[in-house]
């Protein structure tokens, strides 16, 4: 192919990421309560209650404290430990997820497109909701996690596979549920963090919060800039040494800098929470971001460092307003949201003319309206019914302004809208204290087409109360609809694509408790237990101090773990294939994705204020192409999909003592193939495995007038050379120093 069309579409698509995936915005029910304890919340006016219905449904006044939550029946979820999310507020969710979960993060570089793969699926198979609203791009289907700072998010939960079906449609791999929480303190709080890091990286974080009576609010501002021009030895290039007659006499690998990687991101987020006299909760969260980023060049690029460069700019506003009423035995909620996202991708080529020419000037504007209404009814402590209706309206304008028309005008694009609606109903039943069942059925409507009913069934059985050993199993169908790019991108969009359809089963066992012998019905999900959420500190976001206190305050050993096996078959998997002169998406593959997920956590108080904590995740992920070969010579059938590691391991170890904490994070990914026939012999047919280690040391001091914290972090501790995407080197050892000050009023 090649040709301008091919390249054009490709370059746009590449940026739009691995170019092969699409999106479904089919939505449905709210995220299920990530596993939270069923401890009855003392009153509806729990200031800790998440504003988001995404998070735990607190079961009104039903006295079920001895039970596991009805809402979490059979759900395989993991909540990112606050240690992971707050450990380094300068981290994006891309970093947090790669270090603290079993997801594979494919990163095109530091501060560059980072997408997530859940259980061996594509980035668009992971649904991402923010305060209940789907934030996957309706054009691209995925979320760039490098643009989601962990500073802005209070809760991160992962819903694995089937568990996501009650949260969002299309989560063939799973869902990432992000939520904001009301601050928990009283009065005004303020904190400011200044970060200075390698490669001229400056991070400024400001957080203001007010809590008092019924009204609470949080304001967060984040401004991060980086030259991001890290040096690396370029082993993909040689500088040839020439003799007098032009013959080569030697060579060396050049030391180069990451070219065109600079970025500047500004985020402003405002949350309001109001709790009415009868416990009705109102919330309004708004998040505006403006990001300007260079698109770094490959390290096999020999072009001169001139004005040729590609940039990506994004301005996005997301808002969600919610109302929630909880009374004895029932809960009602309403939610409305609006997203406006303007994305530009410009690729300029320096041809020596006065002005660089624009090869690509791709601009898109997406407007999304979102609404949801739902009700929960707790018949008694055994039965729970829920129903929900969700609607999204996506309006997309996309144009490439670089295409010159004979009329002298430029611009070439498309303008489409799509409505997506879904209704769902679920019933949860716990016939005995040990046994629970849940069933969910969803019906989607997208762009005028109805899906077949989409069922999900979940069950669990408590094998042993001591250690809270629970066996879970679930099965679900799933559909993912083509993205608007899949259908309308010019050139290549294919309006006749069928949705991808998946069927997933999984089963496993979880356990958890504390060593104090309390055991029993209290299930301690990592960080998910209300009891472990500290008040004070900096409120909604668990402050270091809070976490520290938590560590120190833990008088008992706590442990937990879970092992799950899963198997998914996804038919009509959409891939972009070359057709005449350009690429076009086709329903080509059948993918069988299966494997094992395991995680464990342990925290041990050692006495005298010492506390040790460990978290570990492991995933065995086989994502195998089971489609029909395209011909006799097609050797891709039976092989692992591109860029899916078979093994991923991540772990965190932390030790705390009197305001000091030392954290060590590691992640390992096995070899990832870059060819569909998994021929690692052809070079470069794969990306080498890597083992990455980060460490940080922090000291917190509580003064009379302020809380102070100083933290020093070292990333890539052993200065390893590594890539997660071919020819895109990642930075070597780098440092960050963060100083936080939180005056007391």
């Amino acid at each position, binding site marked *: *192919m*090649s*040709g*301008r*069309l091919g*390249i054009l579409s*490709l*370059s746009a698509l*590449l940026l739009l990421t691995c170019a092969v995936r699409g999106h479904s915005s089919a939505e449905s029910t709210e995220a299920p309560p990530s596993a939270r304890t069923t401890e009855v919340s003392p009153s509806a006016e729990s200031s800790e209650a998440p504003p988001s219905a995404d998070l735990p449904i607190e079961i009104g006044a039903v006295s079920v404290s001895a039970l596991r939550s009805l809402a979490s029946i059979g759900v395989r979820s993991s909540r990112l430990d606050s240690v992971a999310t707050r450990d380094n507020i300068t981290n994006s969710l891309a970093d947090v997820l790669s270090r603290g979960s079993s997801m594979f993060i494919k990163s095109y570089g530091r501060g560059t497109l980072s997408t997530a793969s859940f259980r061996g699926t594509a980035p668009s198979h992971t649904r991402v909701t923010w305060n209940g609203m789907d934030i996957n791009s309706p054009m691209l289907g995925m979320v760039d996690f490098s643009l989601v700072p962990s500073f802005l998010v209070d809760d991160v939960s992962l819903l694995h596979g089937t568990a996501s079906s009650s949260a969002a449609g299309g989560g063939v791999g799973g869902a990432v549920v992000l939520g904001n929480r009301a601050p928990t303190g009283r009065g005004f709080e303020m904190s400011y963090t200044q970060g200075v890091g390698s490669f001229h990286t400056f991070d400024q974080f400001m957080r203001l919060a007010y809590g008092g009576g019924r009204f609470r609010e949080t304001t967060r501002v984040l401004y991060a800039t980086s030259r991001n021009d890290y040096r690396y030895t370029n*082993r*993909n290039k*040689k500088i*040839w040494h*020439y003799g007098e007659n*032009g*013959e*080569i006499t030697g*060579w060396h690998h050049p030391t180069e800098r990451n070219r065109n990687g600079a970025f500047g991101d500004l985020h402003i987020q405002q949350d309001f929470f109001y709790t009415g006299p009868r416990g009705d909760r109102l919330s309004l969260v708004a998040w505006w971001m403006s990001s300007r980023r260079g698109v770094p060049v*490959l*390290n*096999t*690029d*020999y*072009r*001169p460092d001139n004005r*040729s460069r590609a940039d990506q700019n994004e301005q996005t506003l997301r808002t969600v307003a919610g109302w929630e009423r909880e009374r004895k035995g029932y809960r009602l909620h309403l939610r409305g949201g609006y997203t406006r996202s303007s994305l530009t991708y410009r690729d300029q*080529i*320096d*041809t*020596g003319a006065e002005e660089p*020419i624009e*090869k690509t000037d791709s601009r898109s504007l997406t407007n999304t309206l979102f609404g949801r209404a739902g009700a929960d009814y707790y018949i008694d402590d055994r039965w729970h019914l829920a129903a929900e209706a969700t609607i999204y309206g996506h309006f997309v304008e996309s144009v490439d302004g*670089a*295409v*010159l028309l*004979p009329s002298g005008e430029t611009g*070439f694009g498309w303008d489409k809208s799509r409505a997506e609606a879904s209704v769902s109903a679920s019933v949860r039943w716990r016939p005995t204290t040990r046994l629970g069942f849940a069933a969910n059925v969803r019906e989607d409507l997208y762009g005028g087409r109805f899906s077949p009913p989409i069922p999900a069934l979940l069950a669990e059985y408590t094998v042993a109360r001591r250690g809270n050993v629970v066996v879970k199993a679930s099965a679900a169908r799933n559909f993912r609809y083509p993205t608007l790019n899949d259908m309308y991108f010019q*050139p290549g969009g294919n309006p006749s694509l069928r949705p991808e359809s998946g069927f997933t089963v999984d089963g496993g066992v979880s356990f958890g408790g504390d060593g104090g012998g309390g055991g029993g019905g209290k299930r301690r999900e990592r960080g998910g237990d209300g009891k472990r959420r500290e008040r004070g500190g900096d409120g909604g976001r668990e402050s270091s101090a809070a976490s520290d206190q938590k560590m120190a305050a833990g008088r008992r050993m706590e442990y937990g773990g879970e092992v799950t096996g899963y198997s998914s078959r996804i038919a009509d998997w959409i891939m972009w*294939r*070359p057709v*005449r*002169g*350009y690429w076009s998406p086709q329903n080509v593959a059948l993918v069988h994705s299966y494997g094992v997920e395991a995680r464990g956590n342990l925290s041990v108080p050692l006495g005298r204020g010492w506390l040790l904590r460990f978290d570990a995740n492991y995933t065995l992920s086989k994502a195998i192409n089971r489609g029909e070969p395209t011909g006799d*010579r*097609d*050797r*891709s059938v039976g092989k692992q999909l591109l860029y899916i590691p078979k093994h991923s391991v991540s772990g965190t170890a932390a030790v705390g003592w009197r305001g000091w904490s030392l954290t060590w994070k590691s992640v390992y990914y096995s070899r990832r193939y*870059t*060819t*569909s*026939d998994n*021929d690692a012999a*052809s*070079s*470069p047919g794969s990306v080498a495995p890597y083992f990455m280690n980060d460490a940080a040391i922090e000291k917190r001091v509580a003064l009379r007038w302020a809380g102070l914290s100083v933290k020093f972090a070292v990333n890539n501790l*052993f200065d390893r*050379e*590594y890539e997660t995407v*071919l*020819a895109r080197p990642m930075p070597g050892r780098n440092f960050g120093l963060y100083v936080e000050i939180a005056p007391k009023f």
Partner: protein
Amino acid sequence: MKNILFVRRALRALLPGAVALLAAPMISTSCTEPETGSKSLRGDGSGVFVVNEGTFMSPSASLDWYDPDARKIENDIFSRANDIPLGDTAQSMTVHGGVGYVVVNNSGVIFAVDLKTFEVKGSIEGFTSPRHIHFVSDTKAYVTQMNDPRIAIVDPTSRQITGYIATGGTEMSSVEQMVEWGRFVFANCWSYDNRLLVIDTETDEVTEEIEVGVQPASMALDKNGKIWVVTDGGNDYVAEAIGHEPPALHRVDAATRIVEKSVQLDENGFYFKLDVDGTGGTVYLLNGGVWKFDATAGELPAEPFIEGGAVSFYGMGVDPATGEVYLSDAIDYQQAGVVYRYGAAGALVDEFEVGIAPKAFCFVNE
């Protein structure tokens, strides 16, 4: 006492080594530079080179060498001989003065490669998007570029760009192949274009433009001084800019610059390619299958010389010495491609695996 001293000494001697051993895998990636060149890898200076594009925006372009007599394929010879990847999206290879010049489009580089050892003899840089190189003399070559309204003039001996030829058209002009007739070089402007350029090699200027159909994709010069051009006709997406029409085969007289004949083609495959045999008397057209016809023929044959069938061939090359036809199948563009070698009479002679997205062939006959 002595024993203790010895143990201490031994410990002192061994400890740093032990520490280094433990630390080495943690700290270093590669302390030792791999040696250049794989000793067992060596060609005989002739044969067929297969240029594989690789996947766009990845360093997976590659070069293979095929020995037609021994029916032996050596894959990935560039990386094996030089220990670096060829780069991103290799486009073409041209041999001049016993040296192979491999044009790597999206890396913006041309590597001069020894035909026997496959080792780099030099590299030429400074391009925006090079596509093909054509040698006018030992000291002057033209390099066409995509999305750049300039053909670069290169001195291969100094490896420098010495000047540019303005190609006219839009600022996004893209020029592809070149053929030389007399003192003129003809070049086809493919993407969003419909022209052939006529370049005077003495003045390095475009002296004339010949309009053919929409998007001339490939061309070849026969022994009678006729330039065969295939236009792909564009598609809906370029229609607004330059129109959309059925693909066509055109014959242009190099001397008069007149389009003498145009024949509409069926759309059988995804890619078009033209080539001639060694005598220049037979023309080969890739359009799904391969259509072979005499350069003096008035019409296309009714039946293809080689059936395309289910495969959409991605590239085609005709061995000038033997008239054998090489066709490539890129399969899914993400795995090892396959090349089919057909004898002069059209029978399948051999098939072998090559790199990702095999695009172009370069024949070297001693």
